[in-house]
């Protein structure tokens, strides 16, 4: 490989000790590499451990076995090269939009007077220039995601980890956010690991789509390269023939896993 590998999971296994002493294996032998500048989407049925895998890459979780390498160096502690976009609201509710974005720089020791104009610039680039003084609860779900995106990007991380970031949003807002993300990403092409349960979203955004099997002990069961031309427009790309062909192909694999995952979750509910 010529481009360096930003994130490499080598046979990573993730297990949790349950309350009753049993060990629950969430992910088994995950092998995944994200090259620098590559946009990889992980898709899988609910409860397959895709977010878990992301937390391993972030250093929030330690793998039970296997290793995590960030730019060819083993990861110890938190992944300092990565920015993490959470599924749930993660903004500081007591800070204004502007302060929420500026904090990313202030933590690094940038003086506040310097951080604020930059934060304003980032807010403008996510389309919220006029909302700097608003507190998170005064913003819509989509606007909060924009602030969160600016908060992460202002630190200029080399790797972006995204955990179903647009999951809670409505369908139209998701598409708008997807386009915004692609625009921002196009500017400097960071390595992205994007977790979603929405196959269409994954194909529209990513260079490579990775499919995980239903949990527990889920594995990576396939990867597809997406060769749709860039820059893409999410609204347009969904009309593309290639998009449909790829969607059909991946869905034929994913469908079984989704059914399995669904059966397991209902089964587990009955057992309880």
């Amino acid at each position, binding site marked *: 490989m010529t481009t360096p590998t930003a994130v490499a999971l080598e046979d990573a296994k993730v297990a949790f000790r349950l309350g009753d002493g049993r060990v629950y294996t969430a992910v088994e032998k995950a092998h995944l590499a994200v090259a620098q500048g590559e946009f990889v989407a992980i898709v899988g049925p609910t409860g397959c451990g895709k977010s878990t895998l992301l937390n391993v890459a972030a250093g929030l979780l330690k793998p039970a076995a296997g290793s995590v390498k960030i730019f060819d160096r083993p990861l110890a502690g938190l992944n300092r090269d990565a920015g*993490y976009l959470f599924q749930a609201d*993660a903004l500081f509710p007591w800070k204004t939009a502007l302060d929420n974005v500026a904090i990313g720089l202030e933590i690094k020791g940038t003086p506040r007077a310097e951080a604020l104009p930059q934060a304003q610039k980032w807010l403008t680039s996510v389309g919220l220039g006029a909302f700097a003084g608003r507190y998170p609860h005064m913003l819509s779900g989509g606007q909060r995601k924009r602030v969160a995106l600016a908060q992460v990007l202002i*630190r200029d991380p080399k790797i972006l980890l995204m955990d179903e970031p647009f999951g809670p949003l409505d369908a139209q807002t998701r598409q708008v956010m997807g386009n915004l993300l692609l625009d921002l990403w196009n500017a400097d092409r960071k390595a992205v690991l994007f977790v979603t349960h929405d196959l269409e979203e994954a194909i529209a955004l990513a260079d490579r789509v990775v499919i995980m099997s239903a949990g527990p002990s889920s594995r990576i069961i396939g990867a597809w390269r997406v060769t749709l031309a860039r820059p893409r427009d999410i609204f347009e790309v969904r009309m593309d023939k290639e998009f449909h062909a790829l969607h059909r192909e991946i869905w034929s694999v994913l469908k079984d896993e989704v059914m399995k995952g669904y059966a397991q979750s209902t089964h587990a509910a009955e057992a309880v």
Partner: protein
Amino acid sequence: MSRVTLLALQILVAIVCIVLWQLLSTVPLFGKILLPPFFFSNPVDVFEQIVKWFASGVIWKHLWITLVESILAFVIGSLGGVLIGFWFARQPLVAAVFDPYVKMVNALPRVVLAPIFALWLGLGIWSKVALGVTLVFFIVFFNVYQGVKEVSRTVLDNGRMLGMSEGQLMRHVYWPSALSWMFSSLHTSVGFAVVGAVVGEYLGSAAGLGYLIQQAEGVFDVAGVFAGMFVLSAFVILIDYGVTLVERRLLVWRPTVDGRG
């Protein structure tokens, strides 16, 4: 309902009550006065008493003393509550060890402490402040403890992923969260500071609203007791209004500013 009608109705309630009180305590009904003046006084006398207090200026000294005691109790109790609450929340072992004792002291009706404080600290303001502190402290303590414990996991993780050190997490995440819980109980804790001061005065002092009421009661001056009660109510309402203003300023980032704890 418009604000004007609401205000009109609110005033109407007061007028009806006062008129009824005046009538029942002065006009005999079926040859009998239902509210004997000795026990119930009447609004006119009470009002005269209040006017006399303000006209002669004696009331200011007592109001001032009660205010100072309340503020001191609130400040000291809050400071202690914040510090200990923070400490316990960050050191689960300490919290576990002291848990039964905290519960024990909190379960104790604070009035029984008043004589002890009077003994230890004398009849001046400090025994009243101490009583108020024991009330305020626990409210603030429990709220801060809860606030630090219940910081959202995602917000914490986000802080960590943004590169915050433990100290920065403390300053940008734990601290604001704890303070917001404390402020949400501001009405209760300020109210209890006043309660502590007044009850303390009532049980033994030489000045303050509680002293005024106790003095009036001692000579069966019912008008004086009622007058003291009304002045006290107005005092508390004014303080509460002040707290609302402060709260509005401090909790702007909260979805519901009016949620009273």
